[in-house]
C-alpha cells in the first residue's frame, strides 16, 4: 500500500465526502475454530468474543499480564455459510479440520452447532509477535497472577490459531457512498439494510467469494472485504471501475493515517504498545472485567481502581504549526507529555495531535503547548473525535 496515489488531501476528502478504496492486504489474519479455541481466544483478549453472535465483530486488545497492549485487533465471528454460495478459499483450513463446510452444515445451513469460528485481524507488524504470544500463552510459558489463569486452562488447540495472512486479502471501501458503490457490484446473503456496523455476511464481488464486513477505521460508513489474495486485484479494479463515476478514489496509508487520527483511533506503535494500557488509551469499552479471567485482568482492575496516571487526548493547534509524533507537550512551559501521532488535519485545516498527558491536563479546553523545532506552539485539548463521525458505535 503506497503512502498516496494522487495526494493525501484529495484522498482524505474523497473518503469523508464520497468514497475511497484501500488495499489493506498487508494486515495479518488468523483463524480460530471450535469451543476450546474460542475459550482460549477470549482469555487472551480484553473484549468478550464468546458473546459475539454469528456474523458479529468486535474490537479488542491483547494484553500482557501487566496490562500493556501486545496488539489491537478486530475479531470477526464468521457468519453461517449460505446454502449455495462458495466461500473464499481461505476458509479451506476450516473444512480440512472438519470444522464446517457447506456439506457439513446442519439442516438450517449453520456451522455445526458448538463450533464457533473466528477470523482475527491483527496489525501487519505484529503478526509474528502475536503468533508467538498465543503459542507461549497456550504452553503456559507466560507467568500470570493466579486470578488471571483460566480454570481447566489446558489448551489442546490443534491447528489454531492458524495464520492465514498470506491467503487472505483485505480491501476496504469507505465513505458515505461506499454502500451504494459496493451494492452495484456485490451481493450478500442477507438484506443490505440488515448489515449493521460491525456485522458481516458472506457474499461475492462479481463472482469472487468474500466475507463482507461493515467495519473500517476511518470514521465513515464502509466495508472491509476479505477475499482470496489471488483475486484481490480483480476486486480492487472492480470497485474502482464501479466507483469512479461517484467520485471514489484509491486511497493510501497517508489518508488512512489522517482519517484515523481525526477520529482518535489508535495506531499500534504510536498510541499503543506494551507500556500502554487500554485504559490510558481510552479503550475502557473493550475491557470486559466481568467475563471472567483473562490475561491482564488483575493489572487492569488495579489501574481502574487506582485511576490512570495519564490519558490519551486530542490536541488542536491554535496557530498554523503542525505537530508530529514524539513532540514534547508542555503546560506552563513544563514538559507533561508527548505526542504519539500528529499532522495536518484536512477536515479542520489545522495541525492536530494525539498525546498522552497526566489526567489533570486531560479535560477538554485545557491550554497546553507543543514543542515543534525548539519552539512552543499553543494548543488546546479538544473533544474527540476531532470531526463529526458518520458512524455510531
Amino acid at each position, binding site marked *: 500500500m503506497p*503512502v*498516496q496515489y494522487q*495526494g*493525501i*488531501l*484529495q484522498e*482524505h476528502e474523497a473518503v469523508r465526502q464520497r468514497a475511497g478504496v484501500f488495499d489493506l492486504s498487508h494486515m495479518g489474519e488468523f483463524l480460530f475454530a471450535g469451543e476450546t479455541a474460542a475459550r482460549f481466544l477470549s482469555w487472551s483478549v480484553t473484549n468478550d468474543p464468546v458473546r459475539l453472535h454469528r456474523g458479529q465483530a468486535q474490537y479488542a486488545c491483547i494484553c500482557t499480564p501487566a496490562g500493556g497492549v501486545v496488539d489491537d485487533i478486530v475479531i470477526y465471528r464468521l457468519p453461517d455459510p449460505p446454502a449455495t454460495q462458495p466461500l473464499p478459499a481461505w476458509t479451506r483450513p476450516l473444512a480440512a479440520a472438519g470444522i464446517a463446510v457447506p456439506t457439513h452444515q446442519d439442516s438450517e445451513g449453520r456451522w455445526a452447532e458448538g463450533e464457533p469460528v473466528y477470523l482475527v485481524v491483527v496489525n501487519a507488524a505484529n503478526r509474528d509477535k502475536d503468533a508467538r504470544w498465543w503459542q507461549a500463552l497456550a504452553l503456559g510459558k507466560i507467568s500470570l497472577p493466579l486470578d488471571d489463569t483460566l480454570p481447566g486452562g489446558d489448551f489442546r488447540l490443534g491447528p489454531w490459531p492458524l495464520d492465514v495472512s498470506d491467503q487472505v486479502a483485505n480491501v476496504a471501501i469507505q465513505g458515505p457512498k461506499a454502500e451504494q458503490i459496493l451494492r452495484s457490484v456485490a451481493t450478500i446473503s442477507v438484506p443490505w439494510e440488515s448489515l449493521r456496523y460491525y456485522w458481516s455476511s458472506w457474499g461475492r464481488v462479481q463472482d469472487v467469494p468474500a466475507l463482507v464486513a461493515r467495519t473500517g477505521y476511518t470514521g465513515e460508513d464502509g466495508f472491509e472485504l476479505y477475499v482470496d489474495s489471488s483475486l484481490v486485484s480483480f476486486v480492487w479494479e472492480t470497485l474502482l471501475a464501479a466507483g469512479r463515476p461517484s467520485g471514489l478514489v484509491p486511497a493510501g496509508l*497517508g489518508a488512512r493515517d*489522517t482519517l484515523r487520527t481525526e477520529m482518535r483511533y489508535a495506531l499500534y506503535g504510536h498510541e499503543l504498545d506494551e507500556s500502554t494500557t487500554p485504559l490510558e488509551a481510552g479503550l475502557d469499552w473493550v475491557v470486559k472485567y466481568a467475563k471472567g479471567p483473562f490475561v491482564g485482568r488483575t493489572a487492569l482492575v488495579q489501574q481502574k481502581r487506582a485511576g490512570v496516571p495519564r490519558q490519551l487526548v486530542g490536541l488542536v493547534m491554535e496557530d*498554523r*504549526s*503542525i505537530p*508530529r509524533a514524539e513532540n514534547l507537550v508542555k503546560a506552563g512551559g513544563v514538559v507533561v507529555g508527548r505526542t504519539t501521532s500528529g*499532522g*495536518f488535519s*484536512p477536515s479542520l485545516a489545522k*495541525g492536530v495531535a494525539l498525546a498522552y498527558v497526566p489526567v489533570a491536563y486531560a479535560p477538554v479546553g485545557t491550554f497546553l503547548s507543543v514543542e515543534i*523545532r525548539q519552539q512552543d506552539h499553543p494548543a488546546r485539548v479538544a473533544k474527540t473525535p476531532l470531526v463529526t463521525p458518520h458512524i455510531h458505535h
Partner: protein
Amino acid sequence: MAAYPQEYRYSKEHEWVKVSGNKARIGITDYAQQELGDVVFVDLPSVGDTITAGQPFAVVESVKSVSDVYAPVSGEIVAVNDHLSDSPELINQSPHDEGWICEVEMSNPAEVDELMTADEYQASVKSEAE
C-alpha cells in the same frame, strides 16, 4: 513534468535560484514539491535574516512530512513570499514562479557558479528517480 527554467540555477537539495543582479530569488523545484506532496505549511524566514549556503533557512511541511529548505546561496533576506502563509499550496501549483520563498541580497555571488544548470539538474533528478 514541469519544465525547469533555463535561466535558473539548481542545488542538489532541490532548490532553485533566479539571479537578477546581486539579488537571488529562491524556491524549491517541481521535483521537490512532487516528492513532498500537498504542502500545508511553510515556516518562512524573516526579512533581515542572514542565510548561509548549505544551511537550512526555511521549513516546508506537507501532510506527510517535514522538510528543511537549504540556502543555495549566502546573503541577507530582503523579501519573503508572504502569500505562502495563507496559500502554501502555491508551492505545489507553481513551484518555479508564484511559489517562490524568499529573495536575498547575495554576499558571495560566485556561489551561483557552483549550482547546476537546468540540464544538469534535470539529468540529476532523472538518475535519482531511477
